[in-house]
């Protein structure tokens, strides 16, 4: 049990290092898209460690408690995440719903802390984040419903292994409409344009993050990196057949994240009601028709 927990902590740490490095590389990629040089690939690490070392201010116990709950919830969630089918801390217990709902503890902690700062811009950011969540989560869950119904298991490694069988395609190909919905929802999840309304730096001063500095901000940065790790690797496991070994996992992960970043770098920002209307128009229609076609008619490529 202790080894499993230590392994889980290792997964969370691996996720943090991986995502922070890839995010650094992606700052260069986006820089090149926008005809800039971009910062060094390890710039994100420097930012985080600088923040952690600084002395900051606090707005009361809930402000700190929320940050601890946020980072703790996200580390806890990441501990369940499989890397390959064999490299998983708690085999058989990596249920899909744990990732969707345990991640919410972290989100709740951050929202709580942000509202506890007493800055209205933070509350507006939280409102937008939750509204965006209401938008992207439902189509995504419907696609995952289809996947779980087809594979008969809600274990993330189980779903990945199902796709690795010779007779089955990746779900990105097997369920093409669902795959597109998955990509769009993932962009909402990790807050890429056009769905980054809740951060909106020029408009609401980074939203939930507005009051933070020093170690609290550093911890929220770590939390954000691990959150992105959870969401992108969930996509890799659910839609891209998981990974047989770590190298393949890193390659798939890098490709997914970089593609999203490049798509994101050419878009503007939606208004919050446009986000909701968007997701409740095409993605949900596509998700529902995909589910009907796959479950009731059995048409899976």
């Amino acid at each position: 049990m202790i080894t499993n927990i230590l392994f889980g902590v290792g997964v969370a740490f691996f996720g943090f290092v991986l995502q922070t490095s890839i995010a650094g590389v992606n700052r260069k990629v986006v820089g090149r898209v926008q005809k800039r040089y971009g910062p060094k690939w390890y710039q994100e690490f420097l930012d985080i460690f600088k923040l952690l070392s600084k002395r900051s201010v606090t707005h009361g116990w809930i402000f700190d408690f929320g940050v601890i709950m946020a980072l703790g919830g996200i580390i806890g969630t990441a501990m369940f995440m499989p890397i390959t089918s064999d490299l998983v801390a708690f085999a058989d217990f990596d249920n899909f719903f744990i990732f969707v709902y345990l991640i919410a503890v972290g989100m709740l902690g951050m929202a709580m802390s942000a509202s506890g700062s007493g800055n209205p811009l933070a509350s507006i950011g939280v409102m937008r984040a939750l509204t965006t969540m209401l938008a992207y989560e439902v189509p995504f869950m419907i696609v995952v419903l289809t996947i779980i119904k087809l594979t008969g298991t809600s274990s993330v490694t189980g779903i990945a292994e199902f796709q690795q069988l010779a007779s089955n395609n990746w779900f990105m190909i097997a369920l093409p409409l669902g795959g597109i919905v998955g990509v769009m929802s993932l962009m909402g999840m990790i807050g890429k344009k056009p769905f980054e309304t809740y951060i909106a730096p020029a408009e609401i001063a980074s939203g939930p993050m507005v009051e933070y500095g020093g170690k609290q901000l550093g911890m929220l940065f770590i939390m954000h990196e691990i959150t992105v790790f959870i969401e992108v690797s969930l996509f890799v496991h659910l839609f891209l057949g998981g990974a047989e070994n770590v190298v393949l996992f890193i390659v798939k992960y890098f490709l997914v994240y970089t593609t999203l970043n490049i798509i994101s770098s050419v878009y503007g920002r939606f208004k919050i009601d446009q986000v909701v209307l968007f997701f409740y128009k095409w993605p949900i229609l596509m998700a529902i028709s995909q589910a009907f076609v796959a479950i009731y008619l059995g048409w899976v490529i």
Partner: protein
Amino acid sequence: MASIELIIVFTALAGVLSYFVGRLNKVAGSVVTILASMFVFVSVAYFGYNNELIHSTEFLPYVTFSVTYLGLFFAILVTFIFAMVSFFNPFFVEKYKYPALYSMLYLLSLAGVLGVFFTNNFMSLFFFFEFVVWTSLFLIPMGRSKRAASSYYAFSTVGSFALLFAIFIMREASGTFNIVSSMASVNGTEAAIVSALLAVAAFAKLGAFPLNVWLPRVLGNSPDAISAVFSGGLEKLGAFVAVLALVKLAPFGYVVDATGLAASQYVIAALGALTIVFGTLMAIRQDDAKKLLAYSSMSNGGYILVALTIASSASVSGGLYHVVAHALASTAAFLAIGAVSRITGTTKMSELGGMIHKMPVTYLVYLIAIISMAGIPPMGGFISKWLIFQAVIDKGMILVAVAVFFGSIGSFLYVFRPLAALFLGQELPQHREVSKEAPFFMLVPMVILSGLIIYTGVLPNFFLGFINNVLTEVGVTPLVIGSYTVTGTNGVLQPALIASVFGVGVLIAFIIFIVLKKSRKVGLMDTYTAGNFIYTEELMHYSLDFYAPLERLYEKYINITKDFYKRLENKVVDLGRLMKYYFFTNKPEIMVLWIIIIMGIILWGDIL
């Protein structure tokens, strides 16, 4: 050993006693409610759990009892809620116009509830059902609105009549009022009609769409303690009837091959899904914290209906577990809001802010309650929602799943509002001086409830084991549970593992936090304002129309159900006027004419 009859008679007598004590001293009368309801809970739970309840009757005429696991499950839960809420009575009776009557009705409705769950006779069931309606009816207007009581009465009547018709049909088919044998004897079309009628009764009691209008009115306007009792206890009578209607009676209608579900199940699940969506959308736009929780109760009632109608082992145990989880969570949340309302005198979120600084324990109670309500681990609500999701996915109910997921994510939105607007944010000056933490005896039930919410989320197997007895009794395959694991249709869950991993995560985060440099404490007004100078707390507190951009998308359509019932009400009033005009005029000769005509019609063929 304890006799059910004696417990019920004791509760009723204690109610009468509390009335007379309450006439002498308001608070003493309400203390009687605490003692009596605690006694009832302890005796029902202890003797019921050890199978030592005696069901013979000696004093009450025509009433017979029997102990079923189903009845026991609901009885223990609801008496527990009554016992917990009763701690609030002494602190609130001062405000009511008839404090002695309040204490008496509180205990009488408890007696009625026990009768409903333990009787084995449909006529007594109906009697106790009405008894609960009539006693709770007069508790509602002691709060803010009299109209809420009439609305409750109107919808309860629909449910009661549906129940009565169902009872008569079963009596016609079986010749007995016994619950088990009369339900077993109906089949074919009769069973379908009975099932539909009982479902109407369940909908009316649960406040499910389309019989939902009373619930937010009652829960939003009742006295604070009564809202908690309604949401956690009395509303669950609907779930009890729903188990009878949806699980014990077979579904009917055309069976879809792909899923093996009958048409009636699709209809009920669709109505349950609409209940979830409408409840969620309405909860998001409330300004009154109690109303918000009321709509959330409605939406959770929808989950219970969806779960019970699918009638697989995962879904029924999920539904029953949701009854427990929601009862605990919503009672705790209502009590926390009640504690705030006692001190500030309002439950409107736009008038409150920053209560956390003076009421930290109440805040934590509310936080734990909403984590469970939103279905987030490691709280009880996650287990039940997980089981319900399993069942919905397993049956491939796509459109119902949209509603179920929407309600689940939507609940993050609405439960967060009171947290942000009422407890967090700027501390408003008008409450800064007066507010303080709730008294010790108000914190006791809230903390017990929070402990149970965590317990149900971390170690659900004790409750699920009890629910498995219920499942066996109503004819559903029991759920597979290990010593720490729960096995659903397509996955295994180990709640204790989730909780401990979460604990490890928090520990790591705490260590990171504590080893780094200590932060300097600054005031809440010392925030980034983009260069503006703002000195009033209200301007820095974002609480009004929290989800305005989202609300704008559907605010045109929110009054459709309400308008429908308003028009129906007007039609009923018109009909009443018409009857009055033709029949009850002030000219006696017309009355006599009508009486003769009606007598003639009735007696035609027999005597004439």
